[in-house]
């Protein structure tokens, strides 16, 4: 299986899907220069009709995506940083997420919105948000979060092929991560979580930017506490693989949810609520959440980094679940 970088896997998926369907277009700010590298080369390959560098006009770019998708295009919109979703939010929350319902199902909106999310790189408060649960709460959009090069490719293909608006949130700063990526038509179905590491004592439930770090934490738990931790990568937040979450906790009886969202109404708190509602009988201990405190991301690394989930914070939380360990 070929090895490639995270960003190359996304680029490959974009190129394959644009080649597959001539109605697929890509629009966004600097999609030609491509600061992350994910859209690099696509303008040369597919031409300026289908790959359009746009002005910095987020509120209209999201609206354009709705109109073009409603009238026959399959739209890929690159929003650059996830914080810029807020600038374009009307057409996301009021149009994209609602037009299908409001029209009585007359229309499908095949839109993929790409945005780079997360902190840890001193990009300061307006280039570091993790708006996963904000998007989940809209109900009318799908949300996927890749964690490794292979599911970056597979989820991107699923997102583009979906007939619903789908947010593909790229973990920031992970473009260089390398891994094996299946060639050809490799698709990661929406709504399926995957077990990244098997374990019997504790479920570490996570996604996207937190997955690699959580795997490290699982290793630490094994060596430091003798705790066998399963790592469940959610991959898709809407639709959410509730069955996989419950099945994992049925195996282990304990759960820590690791999420880069701010804590209030986070993905983690949603997963914890699901476990409280439907998995209570399986739980041997309270569900713990490792999230970002309800603060905006500061610039200085000494202030920012301690706010982010870390293997150390996971180990500390795990100790409370295994007092004998």
């Amino acid at each position, binding site marked *: 299986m070929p090895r490639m970088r995270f960003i190359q896997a996304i680029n490959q998926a974009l190129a394959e899907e644009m080649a597959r369907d001539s*109605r697929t*277009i890509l629009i966004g700010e600097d999609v030609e220069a491509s600061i992350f590298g994910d859209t690099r080369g696509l303008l040369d390959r597919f031409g300026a*009709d*289908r790959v*359009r560098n*746009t*002005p910095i*006009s987020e*509120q*209209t*770019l*999201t*609206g*354009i*995506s*709705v*109109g*073009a*998708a*409603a*009238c*026959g*295009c399959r*739209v890929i919109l690159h929003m650059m940083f996830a914080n810029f979703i807020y600038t374009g939010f*009307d*057409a996301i929350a*009021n*149009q994209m997420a609602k*037009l*299908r*319902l*409001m*029209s*009585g*199902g*007359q*229309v*499908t909106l095949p839109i993929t919105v790409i945005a780079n999310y997360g902190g840890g790189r001193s990009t300061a408060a307006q280039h570091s948000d993790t708006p996963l649960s904000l998007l989940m709460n809209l*109900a*009318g959009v*799908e949300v996927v979060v890749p964690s490794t090069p292979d599911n970056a490719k597979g989820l991107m293909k699923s997102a583009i092929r979906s*007939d*619903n608006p789908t947010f593909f949130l790229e973990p920031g700063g992970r473009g260089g991560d390398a891994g094996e990526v299946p060639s050809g038509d490799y698709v990661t179905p929406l709504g399926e979580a995957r077990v990244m590491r098997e374990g019997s004592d504790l479920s570490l439930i996570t996604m996207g930017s937190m997955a690699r770090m959580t795997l490290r934490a699982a290793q630490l738990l094994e060596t430091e506490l003798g705790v066998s931790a399963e790592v469940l990568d959610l991959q898709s937040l809407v*639709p959410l693989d509730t069955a996989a979450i419950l099945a994992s906790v049925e195996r282990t009886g304990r759960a820590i949810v690791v999420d880069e969202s701010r804590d209030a109404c986070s993905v983690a708190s949603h997963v914890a609520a699901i476990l409280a509602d439907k998995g209570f009988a399986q739980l041997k201990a309270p569900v713990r959440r490792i999230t970002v405190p309800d603060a905006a991301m500061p610039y200085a690394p000494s202030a920012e980094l301690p706010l982010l989930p870390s293997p150390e914070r996971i180990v500390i939380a795990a100790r409370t679940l295994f007092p004998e360990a």
Partner: protein
Amino acid sequence: MAASTSNIQPDDDVLIELYRRMLLIRKSEEQLFRDVKLGRTPGQVHLSDGQEAVAVGICAPLDDRDQITSTHRGHGHYLAKGGDVNAMFAEVYGKAEGICRGMGGSMHVADFSKGIVGANGIVGAGLGIATGVGLANQLEGEGRVAVCFFGDGAANQGSLMESLNISSLWRLPVLFVCENNGFSEFSPSGTVTCGVISDRARPFGIPIWNIDGNDVVEVWRTAREAVDHCRSGAGPAFIEARTYRFSGHFSAEAMILSTPYRSDEEIEAWRAKDPVARTRALIIDRGAADAAACERLEMEADACVEGAVAFGEAGTAPNSGTAEQLMRAGS
């Protein structure tokens, strides 16, 4: 351009057809106002009586393949573009037989099969959407035109500047139609808007027409030129049509406002410029039809609306399950 450069006149049968469509809108809006008071509608309505000439005149040169985006005041656009009146009444009554299965209501009437991309409850939202429709049309290359109806209130949204810039930059087939009815909800334009709205398109190199929106012939004539411009691939066009909404911003305003925000004199002055009455007078004056024939057209419109009321009343109540099911395609 202050007005159309040509002086072309519609044939008699075209003029009568314009009148027939305006009558259907007028009678529908009057009926819906009564329906709100009777409690037949679960929600309120934003009526477009007084603005019929803009909707009908602009949609006249369009066919089913062309598209429109509309506003919260969208019944007239929907009917002018060929939307079914029965399905519209059922929708406003909140029935499963409505054009949007009772899920959208008055502010969201849409019929994609007729190019009615939808009314919209967010002021100015149609600007970006219509630009996107224009992009799809350009890529398809079959000469479809997207028309964006918006009001003078929406002209103060920043997305107007963005949409004008992008559509002109990419030469998209989008006709921007500003229905300047003089009010942003309850605020007179003079208190919230600077300058002449159509001038806002000028620096983008977009052709502009500024017209009397209550003169259906002028609207019809201008729309033909502007739509031709867009269809030819020359890029967007912009029409500002001055008009007036007789029934105010929305149907409950008399109940919630403590003081009137417009004078009786102002309303009467605009009533004297009623586009429906003016068209009728023109028809008779021109000899296209006589008063009795005009009377018959009115009775036909009344009968059509009566049928729509009956259709809507006979409709069934949709359930919440429909809403959950409609949120995702393929579910």
